[in-house]
């Protein structure tokens, strides 16, 4: 699988994948984590989050994990990265690192305005 075909990621998708990197999370936890990770720059609405999750599920980047029922008797679902999702997140991180390294190199040469 060539992860590069899926890059670059949108900021929202990148932060959702990053949020799931340590382990499975449910919807609200992802929302809070994305906000924290992005210093409140990316604030997902419920509709946007689940729209993105649907496409990540369809693409096989994340998978659903049943957590049993919550306090109000509702089925609680969490989301976890799949191997494909992890690979794509790593590839995107590496891509951005390369960008930063390249920019820093040019900066050290005095080429950046």
């Amino acid at each position, binding site marked *: 699988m060539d992860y590069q075909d899926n890059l670059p990621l949108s900021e929202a998708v990148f932060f959702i994948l990053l949020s799931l990197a340590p382990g499975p999370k*449910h*919807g*609200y936890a992802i*929302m809070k984590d994305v906000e924290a990770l992005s210093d409140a720059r990316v*604030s997902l*609405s*419920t*509709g*946007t*989050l*689940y*729209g993105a*999750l*649907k*496409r990540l599920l369809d693409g096989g980047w994340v998978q659903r994990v049943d957590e049993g029922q*919550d306090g*109000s008797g*509702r*089925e*609680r*679902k969490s989301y976890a990265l799949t191997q494909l999702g992890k690979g794509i997140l790593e590839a995107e991180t590496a891509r951005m690192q390369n960008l930063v390294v390249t920019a820093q190199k040019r900066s050290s040469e005095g080429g950046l305005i």
Partner: protein
Amino acid sequence: MNLVIRRLSNFYAFLTVLYPYEFRQDFANEMQAVFQEKLIAASKTGKWALWHDIWKELRGLPVAILTEYWFTFRDTLGRGIMFLITEDKSWRIENRRDALIASLPPVLMGFGIALGALVIWEPWHTIPRWRLMTGFVITLLPGLIIGLGGLWALIKRIPSWSHTWVGGAGMGLVLFVKTIAEERADFGLPLISPVMDIVLLILLLLILATLIGVSAWQGWRHAGMVSLGFATMAGMASFSMAMAAPFNRYDLALLAAPVGLAMASLIFLFVRKGDGGRVIAILVYGAMNTVVFLIVASIWNLPEGSPSPVIPFLVVLTGALLVGPIAGLIGRPVRRVIQGS
């Protein structure tokens, strides 16, 4: 949880119904739970945070919903229009008797018109009244039978054989009402006003659109059968025009019988064969209606410079034939998106 949050959560739950079927099946419950959690957390921070969060959610909702519809449509279209045409490949009216009943309307109309023409045969003012009336009854009786058949089919929730009957009944009603409205002067009645004429036309078109809409929900083949019903009545109307004074071309009206039989064969082909056969049936139906109409139009001898009704009538004939399949092709994916079936 306070009352405001509960009410807002219920309102949000109501709004999630606007999402496409599959999406709301998968996520609506979770979204409601997350929305509620978000409100509870925000309410602890203060009223301003609560309303700010609500505003943010509601502001983003139309775009989120439209985005999901777009993705669902794209996925459906991604499978290709050919998939839509060939899905349910096995569809056909299995029961031979039902297929024959579905094919009956053009036979009834064709033979009714031909027999009526044989009975009348001469200009109406030169024959005894009983002969004229008998001829009229024989000509109009099939239309009445198709009308009642269509009505019965609607009561029975449109069984598989009945779409051509429903279409025939709908178009028959339109032609009947329009003819009566236009012939009022012959019976010494005042003509209807132009406004009333437009209202009547809109009402009749709404009836036809409803019939097409309901059958399109079932798929293009069902809506195609309704269209064949439309085209049968519109095509047969050409023969009635040939019989009308001052043309009195009863010889041309005799052609209605073989044309009706040919139309019935095409409907039989449509309901029993594959999609290739159906496309051929529609094309031949259209060609046949066009030829019949052009033959009848050739006897009109319109005065030089007067506007010809040929092109508008051909547009109506073709439109009647194509509106069903096209609406069906659109209706099926729309149904899948909304209902998931």
